[in-house]
């Protein structure tokens, strides 16, 4: 592997990373991936390191993925799940941070319903902070595993057409993917209901389309996003059924993409809403590869932040 100086303390936003950084993270992940297929899935790299999973929002896969990644590298991991409501009644995030800091963790992995919460944490602790999803801001490790998956399947990212369909405005996954894929030289096209298309798409690095066919046409990658139930309560969408009809990815729409196009989804899927069940389970789907790569990417991030010097 070529020498690259990875000089980051935190993983807060993909905006802070160069294309060379991203490439280096993915290369590192690829070299660590093999550990997960051994019969003894453990290396001593992060022995003696303390990693806290601080989750203010329910999460199964991301939390587990980070925990498995840490344990496969022999770190000690601790999970704290705080429902947002009890945090609102109880101590402030800054107080929580100060208390955790007093126990000298090496890294804190945080998921929070508020955009920017990892930044606040990073200003009050000396541990490395990894953003595992903050509000409608970013989900950097998800985008890194998405890019790793595309690189696996396509052999390159530069020059590909990536279509992202769904609630672009409120999706932290979409935001990180747009930033990451466009940095790596892909063309990112997005579409969805106009109520879910944010301002400033071009500044973010994407081309917006009102017609989803334009976004999907000749795409190498079609990524569809989870439609969240609470968005139906705001006047953003009339019904999930209408969404499925006009913005869902199904056998007919996917014909517009390249014949070898792959289908991605950050999970969990609303089957039959944003993605038809046969496509989710079909040959094009790489959804479970994304999950496997998630562990490798998170191992790489922890290794690069905590293990580099030893």
């Amino acid at each position, binding site marked *: 592997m070529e020498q690259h100086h990875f000089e980051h303390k935190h993983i807060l936003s993909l905006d802070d990373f160069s294309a060379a950084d991203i490439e280096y993270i993915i290369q590192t992940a690829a070299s660590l991936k093999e550990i997960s297929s051994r019969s003894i899935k453990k290396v001593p790299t992060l022995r003696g390191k303390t990693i806290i999973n601080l989750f203010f929002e329910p999460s199964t896969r991301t939390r587990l993925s980070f925990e498995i990644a840490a344990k496969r590298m022999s770190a000690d991991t601790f999970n704290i799940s705080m429902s947002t409501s009890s945090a609102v009644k109880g101590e402030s*995030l800054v107080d929580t941070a100060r208390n955790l800091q007093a126990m000298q963790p090496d890294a804190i992995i945080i998921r929070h319903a*508020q955009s*920017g919460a990892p930044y606040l944490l990073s200003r009050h602790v000396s541990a490395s902070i990894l953003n595992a999803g903050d509000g*409608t*801001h970013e989900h950097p490790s998800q985008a890194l595993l998405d890019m790793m998956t595309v690189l696996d399947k396509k052999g390159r990212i530069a020059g590909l057409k990536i279509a992202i369909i769904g609630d672009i405005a409120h999706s932290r996954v979409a935001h990180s993917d747009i930033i990451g894929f466009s940095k790596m030289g892909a063309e990112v096209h997005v579409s969805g209901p106009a109520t879910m298309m944010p301002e400033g798409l071009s500044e973010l690095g994407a081309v917006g389309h009102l017609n989803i066919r334009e976004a999907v046409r000749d795409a190498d990658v079609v990524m569809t996003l989870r439609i969240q139930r609470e968005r139906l309560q705001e006047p953003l969408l009339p019904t999930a059924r209408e969404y499925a009809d006009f913005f869902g990815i199904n056998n007919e729409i996917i014909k517009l993409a390249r014949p070898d196009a792959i289908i991605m989804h950050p999970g969990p899927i609303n089957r039959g809403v944003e993605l038809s069940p046969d496509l989710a389970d079909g040959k094009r789907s790489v959804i479970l590869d994304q999950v496997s790569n998630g562990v490798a990417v998170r191992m790489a991030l922890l290794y690069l932040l905590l293990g580099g010097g030893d």
Partner: protein
Amino acid sequence: MSRPLFLKNGRIIDPASNIDRVGDLLVAAGKCQTLVESPPADTVEIDLTGKWVLPGLIDIHVHLREPGEEYKETIASGMAAAAAGGFSAVACMPNTNPPLDSESAIAFVCERARLAKGARVYPVGAISRGSEGQELADMGEMRRAGAVAFSDDGHPVADSQLMRRALEYASNYNCPVISHSEELSLSRNGAMNEGAFATRLGLRGIPGAAEEIMVYSDLALAAYTGQRLHLAHISTAESVGLIRRAKAAGCPVTAETTPHYFSLTEEAVGSYDTNAKMNPPLRTAADVEAVKEGLRDGTLDAIATDHAPHSELEKEVEFAQAANGIIGLETSLPLALCLIREGVIDARRLVELMSINPARIIGVEGGSLAVGQRADITVVDPALNFCYERRNIVSKSKNSPFIGRHFTGRAVLTIVDGEIVYDAR
């Protein structure tokens, strides 16, 4: 009564008397005086060579937090901060706890102010009982106790009929109604200006239309009733345009903007800096330019700070949960002086925006250094370089996005009723 003051060799800028010249000013018995051959024997002589002598600056939009949130600011600490910023008077908004919606609440503020030293305090009474937007508060009684205007600031008056009646009823007491113009259904849960920057930060946006819709509604009611409306904290280009057109059509409206709307854009939010969070939010560079043009061409009548003290309890939290508002009393004049250096306004216009017009809007004495006028005077050193540092902030709260900024020019002497209430010479 303090000793007479003889202010020598300052540049006296008194547009109300059409004066802008280097000269002397005698202050005695709390008034500006004509200079007879020589000043009285016990006079204190102050040499103000190189300084500007202005009619006392008046900030018609501050939050003093007392009663109810004295840990953020008190009437006394706010008066001291105002004096340190060069203000000889402030008008304080009624969104305290409990709100200033009664004669006794207004009397309480006046009494507190009487016992402290610093800028004068003119209380603004609530438009509606409890500032709840349902029924009119007792405006007559509040006026009798010392209220100078009425506002539910912090909240819009959402009900157009109530706003209409407020404009009409306030006219009985010769008071303006100050509107916080915001259409809540568009702004609710918003954390910053809507646009590419908010998208990037994943923060819910507040579109300019949330302000403009209500500005238009308020202007229509002022035009219809013919009664005096004052629009608070104008932040968008379109609002400035609406006000310009309304004034041209004869609508009895005045309007203010704040130093942050002509000094900062939404980009000041940076990496979730809650000291760049306020309502209305910081806008775009085009809005900043339009606000400056409004200050220059007379569309906007006043610079007011919307001084909104908050402690770390409200600001050291997640951005969306942080309280809106920043302190402004001690940075308002330095930021306005930047407008002079940029060539947007001249010193005369600054006096109009920060003294003459504010006095006229709330109907109080001030804005003039003519003989016989109350001696409320601000002395500015326009060349003084300083860094605005946290440890030097007089206000109880330190929530300012300008901490660490280097400025040229500030108040060095503030005089109220002929008495020095702030002296940094």
